[in-house]
């Protein structure tokens, strides 16, 4: 007796990842990638979540890169044939979460690496979160859209609206038709990073200090010892941590 071929639908296995690589998209420079990364590390630290750090910013060699704030960060040069293999090296040491801060212009290397290595990484339980920073500068949006074009659905997206001015106009992100299409297709989670007073930001950058150090009065820098600076640092941390808590699914396992 002839029987119709049954249509078998394979169940979709939604297994939890066993590792996660969280990286800033290394496109446009000066959008606050490292400033955000340092706060992200502080957020993980507040939760006592074990993680490893990779500083892939080869432009800011001495001051202002992730390793300047966290000397424990592994300094890696992305501009080489092995691309982002440092992701794998660090994971191989056992850290379940890796935070990588990329420098500007890392696109092509990252592109090639994802094309050749992503499938292997995915089958080994590694999830990726790509962080894009939007500022009032339209070039920051173009950079995110360009990265999205090659990363596609291989990563989950976190967009950070970084208020680099006060008030900050994000019209280039909110009203742009291409950005709207990206939001519809990629469904990124969006959080806000509030405007930070430049004097505090500059002093912290100059001395390689985290907000935690300022908030806990662990600095001798006069401008950062002021009670107003301490309170601001505490408020910046509290507000951004609340935003990160909203999207913790993209940052944990």
């Amino acid at each position, binding site marked *: 007796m002839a029987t119709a071929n049954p249509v078998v639908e394979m169940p979709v296995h939604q297994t939890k990842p066993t590792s996660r690589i969280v990286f800033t998209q290394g496109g446009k420079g000066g959008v606050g990638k490292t400033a955000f990364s340092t706060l992200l590390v502080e957020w993980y630290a507040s939760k006592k*979540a*074990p993680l*490893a750090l990779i500083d892939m910013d080869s432009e800011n060699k001495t001051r202002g890169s992730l390793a300047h704030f966290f000397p424990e960060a592994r300094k890696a040069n992305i501009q080489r044939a092995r691309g982002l293999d440092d992701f794998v090296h660090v994971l191989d*040491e056992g*850290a379940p979460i890796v935070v990588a801060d990329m420098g500007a212009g890392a696109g092509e290397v990252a592109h090639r690496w994802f094309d050749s290595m992503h499938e292997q990484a995915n089958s080994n339980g590694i999830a990726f979160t790509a962080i894009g920073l939007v500022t009032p500068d339209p070039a920051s949006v173009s950079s995110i859209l360009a990265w999205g074009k090659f990363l596609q659905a291989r990563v989950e997206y976190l967009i950070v609206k970084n208020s680099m001015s006060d008030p900050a106009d994000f019209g280039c992100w909110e009203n742009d038709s291409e950005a709207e299409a990206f939001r519809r297709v990629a469904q990124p989670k969006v959080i806000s990073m509030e405007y930070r007073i430049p004097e505090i930001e500059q002093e912290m950058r100059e001395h390689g200090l985290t907000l935690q150090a300022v908030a806990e009065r662990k600095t001798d820098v006069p401008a950062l010892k002021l009670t107003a600076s301490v309170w601001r640092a505490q408020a910046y941390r509290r507000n951004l941590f609340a935003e990160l808590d909203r999207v913790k699914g993209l940052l944990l396992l």
Partner: protein
Amino acid sequence: MNEELQQIFDSAPEDEPKSRLEPYRELVLRWRRQGRSYRRICQLLRDKCGVDITYLPLYEFVQRRSRPRKPKPEPEVEQPQIPASEPESVVRQGKKLTAEERAAQVEFIRSLNQPTSEEQPKPGWDFDVDKPRTIQKL
């Protein structure tokens, strides 16, 4: 104490740990503080540490160890290494984790990813200065 007694005291072998859970004391107590059930901890100990233990001995162990301990007159014997679920140093480099340590860390990170009940924000006060107002007689 005279010399002979001192020699006997010094040569006596140290006692074995009273419970085979003793090496995992810190781990077990942390899991309890995280709110894990005794049955789940039994399962974790079996899967992650190779310790097969049932509910009741685990319960008694936790109850006993949760009480404040009396200060010991003798220096503490160094505890064996246990898998680190909350390492002291958050940012590490160059330290290779064992499979057990890594599994404990993954478990811990997943425990952070539990959904939390979001607090409902209090309704804010809104006022439109241009809106005509109506006066009600009380």
